[in-house]
């Protein structure tokens, strides 16, 4: 370690100006639409105006006649190149997904044809000239439609996209819930959200001969895009370079390419000229995958003192037609009570297909747990007559309770939500507020205080294929300046700044002398970029390690050159010093010139040059904790909410740049405020989106957002550098904090149903004692609406023993919390004895079990990601198998498979 000497400049923890800003402030950023390539043509899509139906005909004749139109492709033409629309986990989809509609449409905005033209104006003209005939069908729009409606996807029995947990009620748990002194039954409805990065999606594809493909694309990681495109298109022999220098925000939307981007890429390969597609905002609000739209029924039991006894959660999320990975959001349940002393929790969690645009990630995809839990706690506190803060004090896990392992097997060693809450209370005088609140109420003014606490997994690595470590490659150039090429990527995160701060401090050079390059898959190495609040933690650690290696290299060389012990050498502000020998001080440049250009002067075995790299993989999860408080006034005449004060107390460990940390918190909180008060992506009963511009989809403006106050707790984490992630927290803890404040303000009028957004109309409903302007889903007349079976598909009736039917090799897909996992299984039966082997990426495992009729049962112990016994229960039906796997506390996961020839 290059310990900074006295007088050495510290950069970590400083609000240094950002390296990104000089170009962005002067209009010299390079966003995808800023790139123009010679010979480039432009793409526009023709899209479905109906939510569900068969395509009877597509007539492109008139469109093709338009001058300036070069080609029109439908799915038929694109099918010349095979594509598999992978999830973020790089697993295949659970229902067939094609880039363009394949014979039918499944949501309004479903892309049907792609026009290639001289410019975007002509391309859009032509798209509108394409004549498409449909046979319209009744759509499945809401979660409740999905539960009873006809399956969205042909060949499926129902609309369940993903399911985990236990469907049958647990009698013991039910008994505890029903006999508890206080049972809070709490229904939370979260609207659908459009991530709304200010830069819409866009891509430029250029094929450079048979073996090279270059993409410019707005994304969260160029490396991730290169990996995805190579696998999805099966192009192992093509060299793919992905460039994304500046990206105008993403928030989960741009994790990987989806249908439109893949269509353009395939069209580019087919057409052979550079193509550009830039999504417009109406497309973005209707056809870019969206997020949230969840329903959560949580029942939570407390004893008379407000201590938690037990809880049950029933969660549903609308997956739309083509989610970026079918999802039932198991993380909601994993983190639901992780920071609380909760003795018993069970759940059922389901994702539902519908005729709406598909599900994608949005900042803190599992945030529903904090919203449901923290609002339920406040309801309980009101019922029990306790201050909500006191209720949390009685139940939060404190530092002295740790280490402990949650029922989900998550080890906790240093979470600090309770400590953050106490620190927050040093700044917030609750007693004084209660006096003020009481006085205000006498005057007919309704003030409310909301508090919430949470923990969040950040910087996770090692348990999901795409959640890897991060790479830092550093070199001291012959000029003495420092260059880094990183696996990081910024969509506003400022990683060029934060990584340079670390390098400058750890290497002993001036911040101004460090340049960080990212945003190009030809630089650095693989990482998923900005996903899961990971870059500070992991790339920070990698940068520290690489800087240490490089500093060691400089010292080794200097020690040899000056014949001085390594320990006597320090690097400060770009100069190499030898203790007690001032006259021997040299610039890094002088040392670097020797390292690169004078091999004869190097020590034996010393690799010429001054370069080092390190790929850091941190502990599997690093937790960030926080407690927030906000004070609102609700105008009882208008239903408007005015946020008067907001205090954040977060513990994100070592802070690299407080301005960047606070920027992440504030950005997340603004999105939280939008979620609670303004934003709503909804559909009418025919599946037509009702917010297609920013006049209807309301984003918070500067007048909606208060000044935030920040307190930093700074408990170093176990990862190198002690950093914790901070990218998503504001969006997770913000909603319950604000909802609690509004509910506290309006407590004299009764409980405020948590049905987001809490618009003035809804709040007036509470104030005036009317029920909320309930968006009762209009029952849609659905053809052949067969009710779903209440439980898992029933096992086929026992048939004559046919053990041999099981013998052989099977390909199986297990829907796990980490996404679908593919494996192969070999079964050998002997009477009722079953033996076999499962082959998967994590290795081969043998097992023994039993077979009765067509029903196979066996147990398997696994160690990763946590120790678990998996109980397999499988039915064989000819060449197919279905079944479930009980995964300990995670509940049940679905297994499907087919016989291999």
């Amino acid at each position, binding site marked *: 370690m290059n310990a900074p000497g006295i007088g050495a400049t510290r950069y970590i923890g400083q609000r240094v100006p950002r390296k990104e800003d000089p170009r*962005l402030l002067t*209009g010299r950023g390079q966003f995808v639409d800023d790139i123009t390539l010679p010979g480039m043509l432009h793409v526009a899509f023709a899209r479905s105006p109906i939510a569900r139906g068969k395509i009877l005909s597509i007539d492109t004749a008139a469109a093709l006649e338009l001058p300036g139109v070069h080609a029109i492709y439908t799915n038929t033409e694109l099918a010349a190149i095979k594509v598999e629309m992978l999830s973020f986990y790089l697993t295949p989809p659970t229902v067939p997904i094609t880039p363009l509609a394949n014979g039918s449409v499944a949501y309004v905005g479903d892309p049907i044809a792609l026009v290639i033209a001289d410019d975007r104006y002509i391309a859009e003209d032509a798209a509108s000239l394409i004549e498409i005939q449909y046979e319209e069908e009744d759509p499945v729009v809401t979660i409740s439609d999905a539960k009873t409606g006809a399956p969205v996807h042909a060949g499926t029995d129902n609309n369940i996209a993903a399911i985990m947990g236990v469907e049958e009620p647990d009698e013991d748990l039910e008994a505890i819930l029903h006999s508890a002194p206080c049972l809070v039954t709490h229904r939370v409805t979260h609207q659908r959200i459009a991530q709304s990065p*200010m830069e819409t999606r866009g891509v430029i594809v250029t094929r450079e001969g048979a073996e090279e493909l270059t993409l410019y694309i707005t994304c969260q990681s160029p490396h991730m895009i290169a990996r995805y495109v190579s696998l999805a298109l099966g192009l192992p022999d093509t060299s793919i370079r992905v460039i994304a220098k500046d990206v105008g925000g993403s928030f989960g939307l741009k994790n990987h390419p989806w249908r439109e981007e893949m269509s353009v890429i395939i069209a580019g390969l087919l057409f052979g000229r550079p193509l550009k597609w830039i999504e417009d*905002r109406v497309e973005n609000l209707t056809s870019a995958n969206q997020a949230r739209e969840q329903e959560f029924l949580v029942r939570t039991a407390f004893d008379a003192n407000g201590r938690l006894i037990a809880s049950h959660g029933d969660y549903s999320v609308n997956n739309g037609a083509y989610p970026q990975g079918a999802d039932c959001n198991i993380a909601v349940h994993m983190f639901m009570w992780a920071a609380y002393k909760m003795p018993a929790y069970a759940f059922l969690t389901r994702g539902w297909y519908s005729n709406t645009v598909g599900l994608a990630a949005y900042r803190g995809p599992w945030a529903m747990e904090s919203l449901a839990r923290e609002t339920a706690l406040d309801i309980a506190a009101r019922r029990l007559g306790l201050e909500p803060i006191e209720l949390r004090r009685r139940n939060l896990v404190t530092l002295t309770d740790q280490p402990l392992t949650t029922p989900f097997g998550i080890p906790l060693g240093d979470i600090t939500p309770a400590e953050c809450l106490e620190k927050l209370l040093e700044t917030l005088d609750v007693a004084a507020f209660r006096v003020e609140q009481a006085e205000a109420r006498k005057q007919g003014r309704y003030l409310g205080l909301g508090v919430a606490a949470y923990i969040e997994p950040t910087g996770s690595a090692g348990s999901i294929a795409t959640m890897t470590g991060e790479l830092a490659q550093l070199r001291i150039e012959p000029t003495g300046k420092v260059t880094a090429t990183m696996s990081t990527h910024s969509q506003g995160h400022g990683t060029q700044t934060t990584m340079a701060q670390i390098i400058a401090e750890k290497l002993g050079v001036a911040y101004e002398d460090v340049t960080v390059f990212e945003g190009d898959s030809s630089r650095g190495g693989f990482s998923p970029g900005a996903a899961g609040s990971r870059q500070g933690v992991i790339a920070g650690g990698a940068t520290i390690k690489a800087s240490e290696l490089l500093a060691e290299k400089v010292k080794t060389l200097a020690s040899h050159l000056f014949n001085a012990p390594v320990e006597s050498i320090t690097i400060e502000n770009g100069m190499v010093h030898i203790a007690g020998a001032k006259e021997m001080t040299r610039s890094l440049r002088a040392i670097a010139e020797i390292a690169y250009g004078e091999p004869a002067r190097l020590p034996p075995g010393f690799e010429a040059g001054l370069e080092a790299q390190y790929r850091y993989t941190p502990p599997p999860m690093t937790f960030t904790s926080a407690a927030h408080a906000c004070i609102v006034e609700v105008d009882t005449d208008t239903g408007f909410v005015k946020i008067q004060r907001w205090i954040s107390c977060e513990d994100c460990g070592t802070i690299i740049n407080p301005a960047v940390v606070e920027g992440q*918190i504030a950005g997340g909180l603004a999105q939280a405020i939008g979620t609670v008060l303004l934003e709503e992506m909804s559909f009418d009963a025919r599946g037509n989106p009702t917010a297609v511009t920013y*006049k209807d989809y309301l984003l918070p403006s500067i007048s909606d957002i208060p000044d935030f106050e920040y307190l930093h707790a700074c408990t170093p984490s176990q990862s190198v550098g002690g950093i914790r992630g901070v990218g998503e927290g504001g969006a997770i803890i913000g909603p319950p904090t604000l909802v609690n404040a509004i509910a506290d303000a309006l407590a004299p009028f009764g409980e405020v149903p948590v049905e987001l957004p809490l618009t003035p109309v809804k709040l007036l409903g509470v104030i005036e004692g009317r029920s909320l302007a309930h968006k009762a889903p209009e029952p849609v007349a659905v053809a052949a609406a067969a009710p779903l079976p209440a439980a898992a598909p029933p096992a086929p009736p026992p048939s004559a023993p046919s053990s041999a039917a099981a013998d052989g090799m099977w390909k199986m897909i297990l829907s796990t919390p980490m996404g679908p996992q593919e494996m192969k299984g070999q079964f050998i039966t002997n009477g009722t004895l079953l033996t076999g082997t499962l082959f998967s990426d994590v290795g081969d495992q043998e097992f023994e079990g039993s077979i009765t009729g067509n029903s196979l049962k066996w147990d398997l112990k696994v160690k990763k990601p946590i120790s678990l016994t998996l109980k397999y229960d499988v039915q064989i039906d000819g060449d197919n198998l279905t079944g479930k796997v009980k995964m300990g506390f995670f509940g049940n996961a679905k297994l499907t498979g087919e016989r291999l020839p």
Partner: protein
Amino acid sequence: MSNHDIELTINGRRFAGSVEARKTLSDFLRIDAGYTGVHVGCEHGVCGACTVIVDGRAVRSCLMLAVQVNGAEVKTVEGLAAPDGTLHPAQQALRDEHGLQCGFCTPGVLMTMAVLTAGNAKPSEESLLAALSGHICRCTGYQGIRRAVKRLAGENL
């Protein structure tokens, strides 16, 4: 489509060319004139990212046609800093106050700030905030923008 010849000044430099009648000012500035600092966030007049200065007034270039600026003086974010590179006070304030993250909304925010503080105008914080409520920033939560506003309101420009 009919084409029209237009001549105007962009960031102090003369530009002459022919544009289609239907071409928006934002597309003209970005594609024909090469000023890609003009960002297009919504193309329907809500987000403010495309704001440029036309004859001293802030306009949403996605809602104006290129033919309408014939003979006008247009300024984009590229023309905001002094020729020697010295940042405009609004640029400097946003830089010092960490008023941007992805930087996509930034050019529009800057142009509105620049118009309101042009000459020696010392706008009040309220009037600056009112004008900026027409700009959407999805990244920053507006904290740094508001701090920059405070500085601009207090500064004698």
